[in-house]
């Protein structure tokens, strides 16, 4: 125990004097988590809070074009900007000049065609009511399509949402016109506004509720997504310091001397594991603290700590141990410092990619989904997401913790075999 304690003291001293290593382990992930959360938060706000600027060029001289603009505005998704006296060319020029995301061109005969289609539909309806043949007996006129110009940077999912929203506004304009025509044909007077409103407004509301395990309704935000993800990345990034430390000791003369002393090198390995496990816990504490206290101060959403604090602690220890085990394993097999750093950095990015830190694993298909289960980061992230986003308890995430422990034990076993084969223990 005395030897282990003195070895831990030695490792801590060396670690504290390695300022570059400390910067890599703490500053880099802090910067990363703030930057990524800020960017993602802007996107969330663009979609969820801020309205998307939509430049409208109304070429229609009738009332339906104006009505459509009002209905698009009422959707709440767009900030409508009308370009008076413009045409399609000036619309795209305006978009280009102002980096606008969306442009909508309403065709010149829009009102005329909407009215014609409404009249046709009303006639058919009246004929059905009266049991008489359709007086016009002609196919309904086709309304010229609306043209929507979009900035190519808009993601496909957002474009689909925009298309659906505009389609619903169009549907409302056409339905309103049909209803008015039908009412006029029946009653020979204008339809009362209150009745029109009652008939066209949807009373069936949609309640959007996040399905959580603990029944709480915390809305997931950019902080809830990014802080756990980049904490895991930071933990595994200690390979840059720990892997290098193992290699440095191995290739330096000090290792030869250690081999001649009456102490097993496993004491040295155990010391590194404990020292760097504490480092990973500190990383998590620092990054979580930033999420709780710093994020609100800089205008980012605050991180909500899960109800199961003990479960969060267990997951953090297990993730940290896995990260430390991986770093030592790489350090034992690397022949040089450059090998450890190069392989370490690249492998961490790959494990992060296939583990769902960069692209959500639920969006992965086939081989990518299978590969994800081999990345320890995937299981760490799933465990954290269950706690942070779904309100899970420790018992709910055992199916995530067990794979992490299995992967960790594999790293430990491979490390032991490596040390034995290289005659290091």
């Amino acid at each position, binding site marked *: 125990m*005395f*030897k282990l304690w*003195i*070895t831990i*003291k*030695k490792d801590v*001293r*060396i670690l504290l*004097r*390695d300022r570059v290593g400390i910067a890599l382990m703490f500053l880099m992930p802090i910067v990363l988590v703030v930057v990524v959360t800020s960017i993602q938060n802007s996107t969330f706000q663009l979609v969820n809070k801020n309205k998307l600027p939509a430049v409208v060029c109304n070429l229609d001289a009738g009332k339906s074009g104006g009505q459509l603009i009002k209905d698009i505005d009422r959707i709440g998704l767009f900030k409508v900007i009308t370009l008076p006296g413009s045409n399609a060319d000036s619309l795209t020029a305006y978009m280009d000049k102002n980096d606008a995301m969306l442009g909508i061109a309403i065709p010149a005969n829009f009102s005329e065609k909407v009215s014609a289609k409404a009249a046709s539909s009303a006639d058919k309806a009246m004929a059905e009511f009266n049991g008489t043949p359709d007086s016009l007996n002609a196919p309904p006129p086709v309304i010229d399509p609306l043209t929507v110009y979009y900035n190519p940077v808009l993601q496909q999912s957002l474009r689909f949402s925009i298309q659906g929203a505009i389609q619903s506004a169009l549907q409302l304009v056409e339905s309103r016109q049909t209803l008015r025509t039908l009412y006029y044909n029946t009653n020979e007077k204008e339809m009362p506004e209150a009745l029109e409103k009652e008939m066209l407004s949807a009373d069936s509301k949609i309640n959007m509720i996040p399905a959580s395990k603990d029944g709480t309704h915390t809305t997931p935000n950019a902080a809830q997504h990014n802080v756990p993800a980049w904490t895991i990345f930071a933990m595994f990034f200690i390979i840059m310091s720990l892997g290098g430390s193992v290699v440095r000791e191995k290739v*330096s*003369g*000090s290792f*030869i*001397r*250690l*081999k*001649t*002393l*009456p*102490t*097993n090198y496993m*004491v040295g390995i155990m010391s590194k594991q404990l020292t760097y496990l504490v480092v990973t816990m500190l990383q998590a504490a620092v990054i979580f603290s930033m999420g709780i206290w710093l994020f609100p101060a800089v205008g980012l959403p605050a991180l909500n700590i899960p109800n199961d604090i003990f479960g969060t602690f267990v997951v953090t220890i297990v993730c940290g141990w896995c990260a430390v085990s991986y770093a030592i394993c790489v350090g034992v097999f690397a022949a040089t410092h450059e090998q450890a750093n190069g392989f370490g950095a690249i492998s961490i990015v790959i494990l992060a990619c296939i583990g769902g830190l960069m692209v959500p694993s639920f969006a992965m298909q086939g081989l990518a989904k299978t590969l994800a289960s081999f990345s320890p980061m995937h299981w760490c992230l799933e465990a954290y997401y269950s706690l942070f986003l779904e309100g899970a308890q420790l018992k709910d995430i055992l199916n995530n913790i067990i794979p992490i422990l299995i992967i960790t034990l594999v790293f430990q076993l491979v490390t032991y075999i490596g040390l034995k084969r290289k*005659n290091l223990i």
Partner: protein
Amino acid sequence: MAVSNWAVSIEDLGFRYPGNENVSFSGLNLQVAKGERFGLFGPNGAGKTTLMNLMTGVLKANTGSVKLLGNDVTSSDKAANRLFGFVPQDFSFYHELSPAENLEFFGAWAGLNKTQTKQRTDELLNILGLEDVRDKAVGKFSGGMKRRVNLAIGVLHSPEIIFLDEPTVGVDVHTRHAIMDYLQILNNNGTTLIYTSHQLSEAEDLCKHIAFIDAGQIIAEGDIDTVLQQHSHETLEELFINLTGKALRD
């Protein structure tokens, strides 16, 4: 723990590096008496460092045995490792740490307790002139100071045998004298010294017994005066050239 009159006893030693077809040692026998000052010499590539690594258990022999005071050096109980200290040619310590911190760590690994380590640290830093820099990082030291730290770590646990691989390479005259004087003191107190160096004049002053090795074979061995007399040479350097030739070695 076994007891023997031999500090080092090598019997029928065979060794070959994995993946290398050339045999480094085959059927090598060597004995070094307790309390001896023993010098091991040879040209570059002769196998001095390999033999030193085999004697300290850094390398494992393919055949035969290496015993230190009767204890097998490769035994899993590491009993032999308590008996010797090793001063490698490289600076084998942590450059980020101070001399005191290095000694604290290596002392614990050598089996000393906290009190013993502190007592020996104070003693050695004083003897080797490192008292004033005991808390400064070793990485900023001169070559001579680093050599003294290297030596201090090797002798920290007062071992009965000390293996020294070129302990004075690259140091000034003052440091060399300080190191050699201290080694003499240790030997006077009964410590066996196993020493390799290319500084043959220095070796003549320090060693009583010598062995020349070349191509994994001992080509001359015995009391230094007897060996010189047998080969009709006055200095070790003349003998060295005579035994190993003038061709350059890598």
